């Protein structure tokens, strides 16, 4: 059990070093995914299976896909196909593949041998959930507000309509609303100009 911990830690460190020394963004992303998976295996060996699953799902799944999506999106152009072909030459993915297969062997070994915590025993999702919604309730609320703020901010920054001028409606639209038969009146427009 200790040996798996050290192997997974070594894989994570090697993959992180590989990520930091790559010059191409996609190659670095490959190594980063392997690094995160290695950290997930370390969590599992340490007796934190819930956090290990979250690390694999959220980090290695969602966040890395977000990175990849943006990288691919910024490369839209006539050279994109050739550059993508260039990214995936066999020499590139052998390094991450070897590290990932080491992790895979470890996971199979752990799944066959059962899970025992390396430190002071295993802490399952139940204890984490009790602590999360007990004394850390306000932290959960703050995290939810942070996520909402991140969502709104990302939407605002990512939308193309941010460059258009804003449409403002008139302040005193009571009469004008009535005689445009319910249509909203744009500020600064004349009613006679709109109606034929």
């Amino acid at each position, binding site marked *: 059990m200790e040996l798996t911990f050290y192997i997974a830690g070594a894989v994570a460190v090697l993959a992180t070093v590989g990520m930091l020394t790559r010059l191409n963004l996609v190659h670095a992303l490959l190594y980063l995914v392997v690094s995160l998976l290695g950290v997930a295996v370390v969590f599992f060996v340490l007796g934190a299976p819930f956090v290990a699953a979250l690390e694999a799902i959220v980090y290695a799944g*969602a966040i890395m896909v977000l990175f990849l999506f943006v990288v691919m999106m910024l490369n839209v152009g006539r050279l994109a196909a050739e550059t993508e072909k260039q990214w995936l030459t066999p020499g590139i993915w052998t390094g991450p593949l070897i590290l990932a297969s080491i992790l895979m062997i470890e996971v199979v070994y752990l799944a066959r041998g059962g899970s025992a915590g*390396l430190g002071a025993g295993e*802490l399952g999702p139940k204890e984490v959930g009790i602590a*999360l919604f007990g004394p850390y309730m306000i*932290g959960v609320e703050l995290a939810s507000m*942070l996520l909402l703020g991140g969502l709104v901010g990302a939407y605002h920054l990512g939308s193309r309509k941010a460059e258009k001028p804003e449409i403002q409606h008139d302040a005193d639209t009571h009469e004008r609303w009535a005689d445009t038969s319910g249509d909203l009146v744009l500020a600064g427009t004349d009613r006679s100009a709109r109606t034929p």
Partner: protein
Amino acid sequence: MSLEVMLNAAGLAFVVAGSRWHQADGQVVFLFILAMAASEVAVGLALVLQIYRRFKTLDVDALSAMRG
């Protein structure tokens, strides 16, 4: 991406400490770090997209002028 690695290292330290003293607090703090990293990545990547759309480059040295 380096920021992700650093946040991950901090989370790993929390989980290891929580495992050492058999407390769930370490994992709880790791969950908070996870949420923060997710929102930060979303906003950061949106900023990168906006920069690319306006300046047609990702070179940070090109962004050397302010409007004000």
